């Protein structure tokens, strides 16, 4: 009896140790047949369910691109809505395979939290929004001394806010909520004078207000917020796949490969495009990465290139109408630079 019990316990211990600390996410993902992706519960343009109940947004499309790279099918992905507070624990514990939830890349998160950031899908910066009807005459964040400010807890936003007011020797009243929706509701109800988050987020929140035209985004940008997907440390293979999915999206845009013309482009004679789309003879680029050789074709078919994802979700094709700005390709004066696929 005793021996059996200990034997069972020992076996369970080994099993637990093996599963919890698994260092091979790619095999796990392939075994279960889908990519589990942690996203925001509702931030227009980044990840929010549309009127048909389907997830849409840049962060969501990035996960679809990873699924397309792994499975050749952008629909083999499941989404987990996470609050700012739960997101890192969810990734660390293996609940999600990728965290693609408008998360700022910082050194602390990269080191002490055990994450690896795969790239920057959106260069953002923190700003403020006020209700210009209630506060006429306020047109700079430097006039906000003494204001009550709604902010989401556990974000870099919360820290930047404290630093900014301290640096400018201003007072403020933080009203801190765990969930994005709660902070929005409190701001709309007039609990706070100003709302602060990443500027892209402010444009999205503005559209959710009872009367969007009353709200203005102040010009100051008080921080650098490079937002990107992250994975667990210690699994280089999976990290490579996520990282190169990001570069593939950028390189596809640079090469002019779009969702519409990708099949045509497969016949291209341009060696860059042939390498990108895996049509080169005896190519091993895809298989070395651990996916199929036509992985970029699959990605572009599923989501389009980076530019298409941007325009569809936050750019001219969306209600947000955010300009490419610093998120343009490096060839067009922006910061987005895809490493060469060769």
């Amino acid at each position, binding site marked *: 009896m*005793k021996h059996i*019990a*200990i034997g069972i*316990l020992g076996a369970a*211990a080994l099993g*637990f*140790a093996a599963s*919890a*600390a698994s*260092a091979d996410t790619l095999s796990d993902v392939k075994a279960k047949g889908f990519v589990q992706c942690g996203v925001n519960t509702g931030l227009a343009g980044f990840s929010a369910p549309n009127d048909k109940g389907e997830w849409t947004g840049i962060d969501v499309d990035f996960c679809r691109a990873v699924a397309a790279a792994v499975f050749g099918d952008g629909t083999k992905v499941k989404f987990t809505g996470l609050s*700012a*507070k739960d*997101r*890192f*624990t969810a990734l*660390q514990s293996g609940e999600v395979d990728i965290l693609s939830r408008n998360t700022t890349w910082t050194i*602390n*998160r990269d*080191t*002490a*939290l*055990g994450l690896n950031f795969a790239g920057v899908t959106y260069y953002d910066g923190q700003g403020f929004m006020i209700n210009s009807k*209630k*506060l006429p005459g306020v047109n700079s964040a430097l*006039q*906000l*001394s*003494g*204001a*009550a400010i709604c902010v989401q*807890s*556990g*974000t870099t936003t*919360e*820290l930047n*806010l*404290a*630093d900014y*007011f*301290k640096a400018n020797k201003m007072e*403020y*009243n*933080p*009203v*801190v*909520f*765990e969930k994005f929706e*709660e*902070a929005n*509701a*409190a701001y709309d*109800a*007039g*609990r706070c*004078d100003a709302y602060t988050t990443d500027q892209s987020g402010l444009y999205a929140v503005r559209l959710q207000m009872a009367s969007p035209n009353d709200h203005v985004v102040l010009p100051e940008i008080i921080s650098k917020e490079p937002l990107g997907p992250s994975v*667990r*440390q*210690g699994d280089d293979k999976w990290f490579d796949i996520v990282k190169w999915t990001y570069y593939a999206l950028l390189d596809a845009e640079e090469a002019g490969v779009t969702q519409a013309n990708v099949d045509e482009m497969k016949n291209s004679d341009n060696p860059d495009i042939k390498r990108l789309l895996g049509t080169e003879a005896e190519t091993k680029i895809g298989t070395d990465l651990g996916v199929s050789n036509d992985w970029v074709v699959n990605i572009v078919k599923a989501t389009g290139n980076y530019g298409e994802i941007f325009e569809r979700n936050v750019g001219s094709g969306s209600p947000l109408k955010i300009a490419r700005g610093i998120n343009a390709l490096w060839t067009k004066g922006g910061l987005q630079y895809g490493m060469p696929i060769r």
Partner: protein
Amino acid sequence: MSQEVIHEATPQRASLLYDPRVRGIVFQVVLVALLALGIWWIVDNTIENLRRSHIATGFGFLKGRAGFDIANTLIDYSSDNSYGRALVVGILNTAIVAITGIVTATIIGFLVGIGRLSNNWLIRKLATVYIEIFRNIPPLLVILFWYQGVLALLPNVRDSIGLPFGSFLNNRGFYFPRMVWSDGAWLVAAGLAAGIALSWYVARRAKARQMATGQQFPVFLTSLALIVGMPLLGFALAGFPLTFEFPQKGTFNLTGGVNVKPEFLSLYLALSFYTAAFIAEIVRAGIVGVPKGQTEAFSALGLRSGQGLRLVVIPQAMRIIIPPLTSQYLNLTKNSSLAVAIGYPDLYAIGGTILNQTGQAIEVVVIFMVVYLGISILTSLFMNWFNTKMALKER
């Protein structure tokens, strides 16, 4: 000796296997060993997995700079203070809402509980309706009701509702003047202390006199006069060293004065009203649990119903009330962690922020458990002491 007799009576070979005492010990040893093994396995696994995932461990992070601000603080705190101090701010915020909530819930609970037994039809029905409503709604909904349904609907700062004594009510909370004491204020405090000491002495003497002679003395009125009068005397002697700082309209909010924020107000009101419904039922059960003969007995002695309730029924009812009351106090304390839904910076909310900034989930959760356990054990100890004091003394 009797043990030996039993041993001799049973055959030697079978004794170890069938001896209930030996079997008992063996099973307990096995159980303890399994438990220890299980705990060791969990701890070891956790440490190993954290190491493999490159996640920092240990409580050293508490010394790090917090970097975030907190709105409601009972002690001095800024973003330059440590995570440890931020946690203390959170613990104090939890404690203040728990203590004020417990006091208010007890008062409302006793009133409603007694109201349910009232002879007045209207009071009885109102108390029933109150209990049925609040007892059957989840506490989170009650909190959101107060926050979004009541306090958020108050006018904004520019149209604040003016209340007497320079206080204001708006959707940023309740503002009232701050008392600013100048030199000589110690005389007021000294007066208050003297008043309380004298009242205690008067009460003792009055009781002794009643025991000896049967004559009563108006202890309550005398004490009231002493406790109010002595500080006033000190106040006058020191030359009225008090000024008020009134809330003023600033650019955005009212500035100056004391601001009780809507987050605290709604949590406090919700927890009080919610728990009061349970306390009311406990109080009713306690009073109904006192045999009817006691009521008849005090009537026969010539006590009025109010006197009888106070001197005969309630002391006996308390013995039934206190033990379940303790669990309600513990529930209220634990329910205060729902504060996170409305942005009140209690222990759970601040701990959650720290967890997210540092990523040290296990350490922060351990702190949560230790603090809530500590608060609960303190409450239990106090209530057990109170229970022993109130329990029937067999003479």
